[in-house]
């Protein structure tokens, strides 16, 4: 490994100060991406900052503006959280898919987001829940829509010295649900060939879709919303046929590449199928049968 120093601040203020140290400074949570990148010389660092001992970054609580997930909170804590399982089903799905139990015990949802891999499993669901990213840096704290966080593969809007502090997921309304599915060639431990998260809010009496959010992984340089599919659904009575049309429309938002994991054509087909399936799971979770 390259030579670097290590610091474990216990307050946000101390962390921000350390982020301003000279040389290449990298913050980390679980280190499941960063430590491997350092070992294999894909990243360098003069100082690494362990964020896990900062209380604000370990938050996992419902506030008046929604669920706060501190950026260092582990995928396993999120996966097993009762509120997450009740209100943010797709996030429970996604955090249970990241690597193995060992990886989930260390990997943070915030780390998954900051790593900004197009294949990151937790991001599509966070997008469907319209997560807000709280970013803290030398000039204070700013909030942005998570949808505006990603610039390209491995690239985010974080400026030098800034850290992701937490994610806020607005409280979903009654009669809504989310789900996440990815496709990998084996059962566990692989990178998504494609992943889809859906969120829908359906009027239980009329079965009209009040709101729909769909987001895709591994089919574009960043996680993307499938806005066309969302508008296919919104304002309509949900039927099998409508779900099928939404699947077709979601494909239009995918701009996949062909690589070792799958061809572009195969990925488009996966988007179609996974969109349908995640929408059906959402309906099941809401308790609506077609």
């Amino acid at each position, binding site marked *: 490994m390259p030579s670097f120093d290590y610091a474990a601040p216990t307050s946000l203020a101390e962390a921000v100060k350390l982020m301003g140290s000279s040389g290449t400074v990298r913050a980390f949570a679980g280190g499941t991406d960063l430590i491997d990148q350092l070992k294999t010389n894909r990243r360098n660092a003069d100082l690494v900052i362990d964020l896990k001992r900062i209380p604000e970054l370990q938050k996992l609580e419902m506030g008046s503006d929604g669920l706060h997930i501190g950026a260092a909170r582990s995928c396993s804590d999120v996966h097993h959280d009762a509120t997450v399982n009740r209100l943010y089903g797709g996030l429970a799905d996604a955090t249970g898919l990241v690597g193995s139990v*060992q990886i989930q015990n260390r990997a943070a949802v915030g780390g998954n987001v900051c790593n900004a891999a197009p294949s990151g499993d937790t991001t599509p669901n966070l997008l469907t829940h319209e997560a807000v990213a709280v970013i803290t840096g030398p000039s204070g704290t700013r909030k942005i829509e998570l949808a505006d966080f990603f610039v390209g593969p491995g690239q985010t809007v974080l400026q030098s010295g800034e850290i992701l502090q937490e994610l806020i997921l607005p409280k979903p309304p009654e009669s809504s649900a989310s789900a996440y599915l990815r496709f990998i060639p084996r059962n566990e431990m692989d990178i998504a060939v494609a992943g889809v998260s859906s969120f829908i809010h359906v009027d239980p009496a009329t079965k009209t879709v009040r709101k729909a959010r769909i987001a895709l992984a591994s089919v574009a340089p960043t996680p993307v919303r499938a806005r066309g599919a969302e508008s296919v659904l919104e304002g309509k009575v949900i039927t099998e046929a409508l779900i099928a049309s939404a699947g077709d429309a979601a494909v239009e938002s995918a701009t996949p590449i062909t690589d070792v994991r799958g061809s572009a054509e195969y990925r488009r087909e996966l988007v179609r199928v996974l969109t349908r399936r995640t929408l059906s799971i959402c309906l099941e979770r809401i308790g609506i049968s077609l």
Partner: protein
Amino acid sequence: MPTKHIKFTVNGVEQEQLVDSTWTLLETLRDKMGLTGTKEGCSNGNCGACTVMLDGKTACSCLVLAPEADGRVVTTVEGLETGGKLSAIQDAFVKEGGLQCGFCTPGFLISTTFLLKNNPHPSEDEIRLNLAGNLCRCTGYDKIVKAVERAANG
């Protein structure tokens, strides 16, 4: 090389070590402390041979920096027995022949200990899912699953 002085509990014993900032917990346990039960396989979190318990939760020690262990509690395979007596899980692996070359076994034992602590009677599917982060190239897994079932259900 920047160094850090860390204090942590390993298998119930408080330890102090001077570590390099860039060392992994795996290197520290094996090369500095002689706890060679924990194995190095892939060194990138895929194989699980280096699995230890960190504050009661499994982690790949190849992806933990040594300074992170400061103030923490670590359990390695050496810490599973009590007074020379194997744990029920270790015993079940022996009785079912849940190992061949043995290289992956310490990792499987730690992961199984964690699984059964949280879920004392897992189904076969749950066992396979929870042990997916541990690779074995010898057994074909069936005997490992049987060993876990034996440990869980007697």
